[in-house]
């Protein structure tokens, strides 16, 4: 019985560790995410930057930053949640994602470069 109570207490502690929904955290996350969404849309719609590569790089940088902001503010990923396993799974997924996306673009770019001229009607390996 005492063992069961201890287990329950432990589960309760874990529970407390998992829930930490704070209004301030959500509002800050929302405000930052809104700004990080508005700027890329403005870049794409108003064309304030002449160089397309620079503009695209800035848009991608904002996307990566916003993904990190939302992951922390909304998905509550940190080094403590679930004894760190949430973060480990997240980083592992990020590594696989980079291998899948980066690898595919790299290989297909080389494939397109090695095609006979005229075999494809696309610019080779434009990627994203």
């Amino acid at each position, binding site marked *: 019985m005492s063992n069961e109570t201890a287990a329950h207490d432990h*589960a309760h502690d*874990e529970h407390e560790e998992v829930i930490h929904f704070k209004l301030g955290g959500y509002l800050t996350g929302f405000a930052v995410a809104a700004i990080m*969404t508005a700027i890329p849309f403005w870049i794409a719609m108003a064309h304030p930057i002449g160089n397309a590569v620079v503009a695209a790089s800035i848009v991608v940088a904002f996307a990566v930053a916003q*993904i990190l902001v939302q992951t922390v503010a909304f998905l509550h990923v940190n080094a403590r949640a679930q004894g760190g396993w*949430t973060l480990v799974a997240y980083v592992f*997924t990020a590594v696989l994602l980079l291998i*899948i996306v980066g690898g595919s673009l790299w290989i297909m770019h080389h494939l397109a470069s090695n095609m006979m001229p005229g075999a494809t009607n696309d610019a080779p390996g434009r990627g994203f």
Partner: protein
Amino acid sequence: METALADNATPPVFYQTDDEHAHAGGSTLLGFWIYLMSDALIFATLFATFGVLNSSFAGGPTPHDIFDLKLVAFNTAVLLVSALTCGLAMISMQAGKLRLLQIWLAVTALLGIVFVSVELNEFHHLIVDGATPQRSAYLSAFFTLVGTHGLHVTFGVIWIGVMLVQLAQRGLHAENCRRLMCLSMFWHFLDVIWIGVFTFVYLLGTLS
């Protein structure tokens, strides 16, 4: 044979000292998180496919011809606000305010329905204009990636509906709280995926 009988005679000894139920709530959330990570890999393959076929227009329409960024900006705003209302629902749940929780969940579901409706309307216009998935490899990849995300949002809306019924019938007990936390993770995850979609599909499509 004799040893087997002898073994049967003595009661089995289990070396499991941990209480299996000690981490019940926590392990559900971690398990659901790992599901979300595997779902992220599905999207990774779809993004990779889209990236490779990004310029395979086959003489068909290009992003400049088919995308209306104002509509995408509206839908992005809708999904971002729904992420906030979902967070407010979690705060209400934490405070034990059932009525407020139900209201925020309903608002989240409504925003989800608006998002899916606008997206379906966009798809309808594309298909009417001849920009069907069959037109080019680019459009196949576009419809698969964006459609998969839209399907996830649709199921999220259905899940919210189920939770509203659960809350109305059973109230705010521990199991419902656990389900709602999974639902909240799912909803926020879809918003994170949408960042990738609007950036790589729509914004970079019209920038290049």
